[in-house]
């Protein structure tokens, strides 16, 4: 296994709840409550969980956008939370983030060139001043946008294109770790695959490690090497993609997996469904003992008293970490294995460079060039300008 690039140990982030005129602290929202994991070089660690489980807070703490309440993060041999000033700034070159919402995470008053070039403004040693425009244009090219659009504003791009801008900004400093906080959940289905494929291509080319935070278990399975499942601020199960999806031992993971709809009507009524009752409890007042016991179909008396340890538990093949007193393998989704095909460079599965020629999805703002206008006399292929990876070809269907 490749070496560890980032190790989180017992990370805790509590937000105080204040009340009254004097703003006394009356309690804490335990957003992240003791999470530990390793992230290896060049791998993708998926973090899944429902809203309020603390997965986004985890990402923000790892970026040090939030100071943790306790715990430590060792990044490439350096204790991240002990760094200050210039050392921390230097560290930030190696760990970057892309956000969920491509509409609010880009400054609407800055051009794309300014947005992607801003990392170079802060880390001036990376690219000499004269070379910045070129560097930004190269980045636009890498993420599949037209380098000539450097002077456009975010509102002139569609959601998928905006997410590409966010990705270009994230990889500008050639980080070692990229935290992806729900990078595709705001996108349409057909555009989502483009961005997922782009992220996979960038990982191959740049050797990035991803911490991929998402609520969509299908997307996480597709992109991740290892997966961690979170519930109410705790990691409840962590293992390789196979271990978590094919040999889940925690009842919460099993319930989550059984609730994911599978786009195959022939499986209707044949899939095992574990319907959980109730909603996720409030992280301000999490249940005692095992936090999942209030919704768990296996809960017994011990569960409300004693918190299960997050340790290696048998899964029928080696075992992986899980936090349940009654951990037991139960296969929920029978998986068909599709032999991995070599990435076909001529195919352009991420639809890169589409943005250059295709009509913008949004209403064009004044000044949008002629490229956005459909010309019926041009053959269809012209709309998909691109050298390496666009020409669509009949797909070989796999079944």
């Amino acid at each position, binding site marked *: 296994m490749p070496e560890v690039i980032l190790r989180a140990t017992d990370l805790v982030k509590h937000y105080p709840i204040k009340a009254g005129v004097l703003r006394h602290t009356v309690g804490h929202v335990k957003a992240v409550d003791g999470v530990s994991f390793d992230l290896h070089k060049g791998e993708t660690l998926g973090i899944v969980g429902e809203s309020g489980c603390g997965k986004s807070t985890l990402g923000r703490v790892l970026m040090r956008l939030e100071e943790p309440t306790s715990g430590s993060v060792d990044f490439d041999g350096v204790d991240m939370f002990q760094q200050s000033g210039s050392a921390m700034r230097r560290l930030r070159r190696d760990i970057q983030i892309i956000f969920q919402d491509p509409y609010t995470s880009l400054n609407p008053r800055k051009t794309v060139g300014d947005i992607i070039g801003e990392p170079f403004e802060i880390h001036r040693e990376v690219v000499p001043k004269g070379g910045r425009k070129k560097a930004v244009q190269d980045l636009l090219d890498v993420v599949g946008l037209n380098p000539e659009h450097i002077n456009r504003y975010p509102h002139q791009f569609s959601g998928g294109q905006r997410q590409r801008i966010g990705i270009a900004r994230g990889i500008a400093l050639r980080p070692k770790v990229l935290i992806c906080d729900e990078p595709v959940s705001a996108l*349409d289905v057909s555009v989502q695959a483009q961005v*997922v494929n782009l992220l996979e291509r960038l990982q191959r080319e740049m050797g990035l490690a991803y911490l991929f935070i998402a609520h969509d278990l299908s997307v996480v399975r597709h992109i991740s090497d290892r997966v961690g499942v979170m519930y109410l601020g705790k990691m409840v199960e962590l293992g390789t993609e196979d271990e978590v999806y094919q040999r889940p031992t925690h009842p919460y993971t099993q319930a989550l997996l059984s*609730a994911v*709809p599978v786009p195959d009507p022939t499986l209707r009524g044949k899939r095992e469904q574990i319907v959980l009752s109730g909603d996720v409890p409030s992280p301000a007042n999490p249940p005692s003992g095992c936090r999942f016991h209030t919704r768990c179909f296996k809960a017994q008396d011990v569960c409300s008293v004693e918190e299960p340890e997050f340790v290696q538990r048998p899964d029928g093949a080696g075992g992986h970490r899980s936090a349940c007193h009654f951990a037991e393998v139960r296969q929920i989704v029978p998986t*068909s294995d599709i032999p991995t095909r070599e990435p076909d460079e001529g195919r352009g599965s991420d639809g890169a460079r589409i943005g250059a020629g*295709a009509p*913008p999805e949004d209403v064009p703002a004044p000044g949008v060039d002629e490229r956005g206008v*459909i010309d019926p006399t041009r053959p269809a292929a012209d709309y*998909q300008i691109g050298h390496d990876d666009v020409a669509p070809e*009949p797909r070989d269907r796999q079944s």
Partner: protein
Amino acid sequence: MSATTVDTPQEKRGSGSKSKYVPQDGCLLEVDDLYVEFHTEEGVAKAINGVSFDLSQGETLAILGESGSGKSVTAQAIMGILDMPPAKIPSGQVRYCGRDLLTMDPNERRHTRGPEISMIFQDALSALNPVFPVGWQIAEMFRQHRGMNKSDALERAVGLMERVSIPAARERVKAYPHQFSGGMRQRIMIAMAIALDPAVLIADEPTTALDVTVQAQIMQLLADLQQERQMGLILITHDLGVVADVADRACVMYAGRLVEKSEILDLYAAPAHPYTRGLIDSIPRVDQKGQTLAAIGGLPPNLTRIPPGCPFHPRCYLARDICSGERPELRELVPGRFAACHFSEEVLGA
């Protein structure tokens, strides 16, 4: 007390009094060549361009599409809740039990909303009124349409809240929408929608804002209610997984048109339109490993400038010269299977 209302109080469908709307040959709702456009400063956005489908009693029809495909506008046109202007319906019919809703007297139409056709929205927090208790809002259906008094109506609201499995319904009937979780709010909206026992229920992305475990609960509830009341259900969603789980038939929309209409098993087994095919190939599946995602290149078109010919041709892997010149009509390939593509046979055979 019902003297002032047009409706007479009626009890549950099928248990006594009759609705004046009677389904013809089991067919409840027919949408016929519907067009909707929005007049905006940027030009005319053609949101729906000739959509036709029908819905039978007890059937679940899914309308699948991405944002901007016109699926929600279709629902709003059926419900008659489009803002006009800017929206305009230049042509088309929406027939409910044979009667065209679009030309119906507004007052009469108002009395179809609730007792005959009702709707669930995606975002329950903004669909519910924040300044009234939820029980009051559910009871409003009975006060408005059945002429009940406050206490009787509230009693019915409690019963409905129990039916949609809201714990401690009697205590919570006076609570406000913000005091409920997302899943519970969705249940309240469902309670409101089924209050008057409608024949048609339109669910517009009912679970998109919800977590996956809650989504499973809500879809289960909708399925049970439909079974119990034999409602026709129109499920509008972008989620191919949800559709596969519940729908009998599906319509796929792209740029305001139906590109495919088919039985659910056929649609997934062998899509007849390149767009449907692209959608199915581009989503990761939780039960597959090592899948290659075949993304559809490009973006959905701007509705003010829909490409000529087939609206999908700039993104289509099969596109040929004819596709940019001639718009393919929705045609029946085999009985019950419709697709709007010049090369559907090729797509099917591939």
